[in-house]
C-alpha cells in the first residue's frame, strides 16, 4: 500500500513531464531545414533579436529593420552603397524650399491580405508611424501632414526641411503595412505587408525561429531570391557561432573574439564593413561640471593622449580602424585629411594641458556603462599618463541614457552609429542631439548646421564643414570604427554589405553558384 503511494507519486511526476512535452509539441507543422543553393531554396539567418511587434510603427534600424524587410516593402529602396532608388514610390520631388516632398506611387501593388497599395495607404501608414511613437518615431519628427493628391500621388508636408527624410523613407518610417491591418491586434504578431515574403505562423516559434515563404505574384521578383527565409534568433554570440559552425544557419553576425574561430572554420566574412564608432563625446564644453573641458586645448589634449592604434589592437584585436572624426567614410561628410589630426603625442597633450592652466591635470568623471569596462580601463590608463584622472562611476543600462539626457555626465565613452550627415548631426552635434545635453553651440557652428539643413542635394558636402569644425574644436575624442564581423557560408550564399546598417539588407543575399 505504501509502495503504491510512492509509485503513484512518481507516476504523477512522470505524467506532468509527459503532458508538458506533448503540450508543447502539439499544433504545428514541420520545421524548416537550412541550406539551399542555386535559385530558390531556403536562406537561414542567425539574427540577434526578432521584432517585439510587427506593427511597422515599431520598426527599428539595422538589426531591427532586417526582419521587417522580409515582409514589408518600403517607399524607397536603399541600395547597398546607400543610393536611394524607387520601390513603392517610383519618383519623388521636393518643392523649392524643401518643405514638401511629393511621391509618385506604384499602382500595381497589393498587400498580402488583398488590400490595395495607394496614396491613402501611405497616409494611413505615415500617421500610424507618428502616433505609434515607436523606437524610431523621431524619423518623422518633421512631418506635419500628408496630402493625398490622387490615388498614386502623395505629398508630405514638413514643419522644416529634413535632409534625412528620403533616407528615413527607405528605413523604418517608409515601411508600408496593409491599411486594413495597421492599428489592429493581429498585426502585432503577424506582419501584413506587400513585401516579398509572408510569415508562416504555423512553423514559427516566437523567440526561436520565424519562417517566411515567398509570396506568389510579388511585384518585384528580382528582390525575391528564395522560396523560404528562416530567421533564427540568438542573443548570445556563442550561440550564433555554434549555430553557424554546426550548419544550422547560413549567415550571422559575430564579434572580434569569435572571428578567429569563424575564420578557421572556413567561413567567409564581409570585408571593410564598419557601421559604429567608439570613443569619447566631450559633452561639457561649457565646463559646468568639469571646468577644464571648456578649454579647447584641454579637449585637444585628451585627443592627443589617446594611442588609438594600440587600443584598436588590444581591444578589438585589430578588427577596425582608428579615426579622429565622427562622420563615417560612407556619409559624404567624411574628410580624409582629418584622420591624423590628433596622432598619439602625449608630450603635446601635457603641454596643451599646461598651457590651459592644468599642469597637474584634472579629474574627469566618466560613466562606466556595462559592456564597456575594458575600453574604459585602457582609456583611463592612457589619460592618466598625461595627468587626466578618470573617475569612473558604474551606471545601469536602463538608466544611463536618461541620466545622460539630463546632463549628469560631462563626457561619455560609448558606441555610436555613424549615419547619414543629418542623422549624425542630430544625434551628436545639434542642440537637439541627445549627445549634446548641455546644448553647447556657437553662432559659427549653427550657421554651418543651418546650411546643411537647407542645403538639399548639397547637404552632405556642406556637412564636411561641420565635421572640420567639430574636429578642430575637439568636441569628441573618437577612438576607432568597429568592423562588423558578419560571416557566411560562401558555398551556400553570397552576401553584400549594406552601408550604415548593422546587418545587410535582406535583398543583399543571393544563393551561391
Amino acid at each position, binding site marked *: 500500500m505504501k509502495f503504491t503511494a510512492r509509485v503513484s507519486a512518481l507516476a504523477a511526476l512522470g505524467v506532468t513531464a509527459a503532458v508538458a512535452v506533448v503540450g508543447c509539441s502539439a499544433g504545428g507543422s514541420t520545421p524548416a531545414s537550412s541550406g539551399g543553393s542555386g535559385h530558390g531554396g531556403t536562406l537561414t539567418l542567425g539574427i540577434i533579436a526578432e521584432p517585439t511587434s510587427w506593427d511597422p510603427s515599431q520598426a527599428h534600424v539595422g538589426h531591427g529593420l532586417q526582419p521587417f524587410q522580409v515582409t514589408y516593402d518600403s517607399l524607397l529602396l536603399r541600395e547597398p552603397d546607400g543610393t536611394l532608388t524607387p520601390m513603392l514610390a517610383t519618383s519623388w520631388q521636393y518643392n523649392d524650399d524643401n518643405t514638401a516632398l511629393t511621391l509618385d506611387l506604384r499602382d500595381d501593388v497589393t498587400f498580402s491580405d488583398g488590400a490595395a497599395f495607394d496614396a491613402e495607404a501611405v497616409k494611413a501608414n505615415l500617421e500610424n508611424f507618428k502616433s505609434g511613437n515607436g523606437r524610431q518615431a523621431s524619423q518623422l519628427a518633421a512631418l506635419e501632414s500628408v496630402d493625398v493628391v490622387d490615388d498614386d500621388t502623395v505629398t508630405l508636408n514638413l514643419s522644416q526641411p529634413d535632409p534625412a527624410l528620403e533616407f528615413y523613407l527607405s528605413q523604418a518610417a517608409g515601411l508600408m503595412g496593409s491599411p486594413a491591418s495597421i492599428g489592429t491586434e493581429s498585426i502585432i504578431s503577424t506582419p501584413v505587408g506587400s513585401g516579398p515574403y509572408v510569415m508562416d505562423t504555423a512553423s514559427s516559434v516566437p523567440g526561436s525561429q520565424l519562417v517566411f515563404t515567398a509570396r506568389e505574384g510579388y511585384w518585384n521578383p528580382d528582390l525575391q531570391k528564395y522560396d523560404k527565409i528562416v530567421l533564427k534568433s540568438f542573443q548570445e554570440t556563442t550561440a550564433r557561432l555554434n549555430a553557424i559552425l554546426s550548419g544550422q544557419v547560413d549567415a550571422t553576425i559575430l564579434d572580434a573574439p569569435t572571428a578567429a574561430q569563424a575564420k578557421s572554420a572556413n567561413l567567409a566574412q564581409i570585408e571593410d564593413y564598419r557601421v559604429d564608432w567608439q570613443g569619447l563625446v566631450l559633452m561639457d564644453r561649457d565646463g559646468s561640471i568639469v571646468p577644464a573641458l571648456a578649454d579647447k586645448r584641454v579637449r585637444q589634449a585628451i585627443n592627443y593622449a589617446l594611442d588609438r592604434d594600440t587600443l584598436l589592437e588590444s581591444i578589438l584585436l585589430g578588427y577596425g580602424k582608428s579615426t579622429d572624426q565622427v562622420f563615417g567614410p560612407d556619409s559624404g561628410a567624411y574628410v580624409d585629411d582629418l584622420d591624423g589630426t590628433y596622432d598619439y603625442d602625449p608630450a603635446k597633450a601635457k603641454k596643451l594641458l599646461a598651457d590651459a592652466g592644468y599642469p597637474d591635470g584634472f579629474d574627469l568623471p566618466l560613466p562606466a556603462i556595462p559592456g564597456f569596462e575594458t575600453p574604459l580601463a585602457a582609456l583611463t590608463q592612457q589619460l592618466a599618463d598625461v595627468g587626466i584622472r578618470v573617475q569612473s562611476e558604474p551606471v545601469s543600462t536602463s*538608466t544611463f541614457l536618461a541620466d545622460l539626457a539630463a546632463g549628469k555626465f560631462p563626457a561619455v565613452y560609448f558606441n555610436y552609429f555613424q549615419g547619414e550627415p543629418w542623422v549624425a548631426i542630430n544625434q551628436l552635434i545639434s542642440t537637439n542631439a541627445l*549627445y549634446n545635453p548641455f546644448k553647447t553651440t556657437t553662432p559659427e557652428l549653427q550657421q554651418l548646421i543651418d546650411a546643411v539643413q537647407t542645403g538639399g542635394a548639397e547637404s552632405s558636402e556642406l556637412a564636411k564643414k561641420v565635421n572640420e569644425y567639430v574636429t578642430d574644436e575637439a568636441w569628441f575624442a573618437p577612438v576607432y570604427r568597429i568592423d562588423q564581423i558578419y560571416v557566411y557560408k560562401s558555398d551556400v550564399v553570397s552576401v553584400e554589405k549594406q552601408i550604415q546598417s548593422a546587418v545587410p539588407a535582406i535583398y543583399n543575399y543571393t544563393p551561391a553558384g
Partner: protein
Amino acid sequence: MISFIIRRLISGVILLVVICALAYSLLFFNGSSIARNILGDQATPEQVALKEQQLGLDQPLPVRFFHWATGALTGDLGRSWFGTLTVSDALVTRVPVTLTLVIVSIVLVAVFATILGTAAAIKRGWVDRLVQVGAIVGDAIPGFVLAIALVTIFAVQLKLFPAVSSISPGAGIDAWVASLTLPVVAIVLNYVTASAQQIRSAVIVQRERDFVRTLRSRGLGEREILLKHVLRGAAPAGLTVLSLQFVGLLGGAVIIERIFAIPGIGQLAVDATVNGDIPIVMGVVLYTVVIVIIVNLLVDLANGWLNPKVRTS
C-alpha cells in the same frame, strides 16, 4: 488533509501578493528613465514625454500597481513596453519550454541521485568515494562550462545533436529529444551529485535507526527493508533538496537556455530585466512564484503522504 491544503493555498496567495507588490515597487525604483530607454538615443524630449504618458508613468506608483493587479486578476498582464506584444502571448510559448527542460532534468536527477546515493550508502567503499568525489567535482564545475564543453564536442565537432535549439511546432518528439539532450545532460551532471549526497546521508541515518535493527532482527530481507522503510524515511530529505534544485533551476536554466538558444522563459526574463520591460518582468515573476508555490505544495503533500506526522505539525 483538506484543511492542510487550504492553509497552504492561502499562505501561497498571500506570498504571491507580497512578492508582486515588492517586485513592482523595486522595478519602478528608477522609473523616470524607462521612456527614454525604450525610444533610444534619437528620440526628441516631446516623444519621451508622450511615451511616459502612454505607459502611464505619470501616475503614482500605487495607482499603477492597482491597475496592474486588477488586470492580472482578470488574466490581462498588459503589453511589452518594447513592442506591443501582450505579456500572456510572450509567456505562453516560453513557459512550457522551460518547464519541460526543468521537469525532465529534475526527474532524471531524482532517479540517478536515488540510485547513486543509495548505492553509496549501502555499498560504501569505492562507490561511496566516487559519489563523494563526484559531489565536489560537480559543485566545482559551473554548469555553463559543462554546457559549452558538451556543445563543442557533441554538436559542433561530432554533429550528433543540434548546437542550438531546433524546437519548432509539430517538430515531433525526436526534435525535442535532440534539442533537449545536451542541455538536460549539462544540468543533470551539474545537479545530480548534490542530491545523491543528501540521499546518501539520509539513507545512512535511516539504516542506523532502531526500527531498522528491529525489522532486521525479525528476519525481514535487506531489500524489503530498503525499499519499504529506509527509502521512505530518507525521501523527505531527497524531496527537499530536489524542490530547492527545481526552484533554483527556474532561474538557473537561464544560462543553459542562452548557450543552447532554447526559447524559454529565462532569455525573456533577462532581456526584459536589462531593458526595463516591466510588464514582461512582472509576468515572469508572477508565473515563477505560482510555479514555486505549486511545487512546494506538491512536495509538502508528498512528504505528508510519506510521513503522516508532517500533516499535523
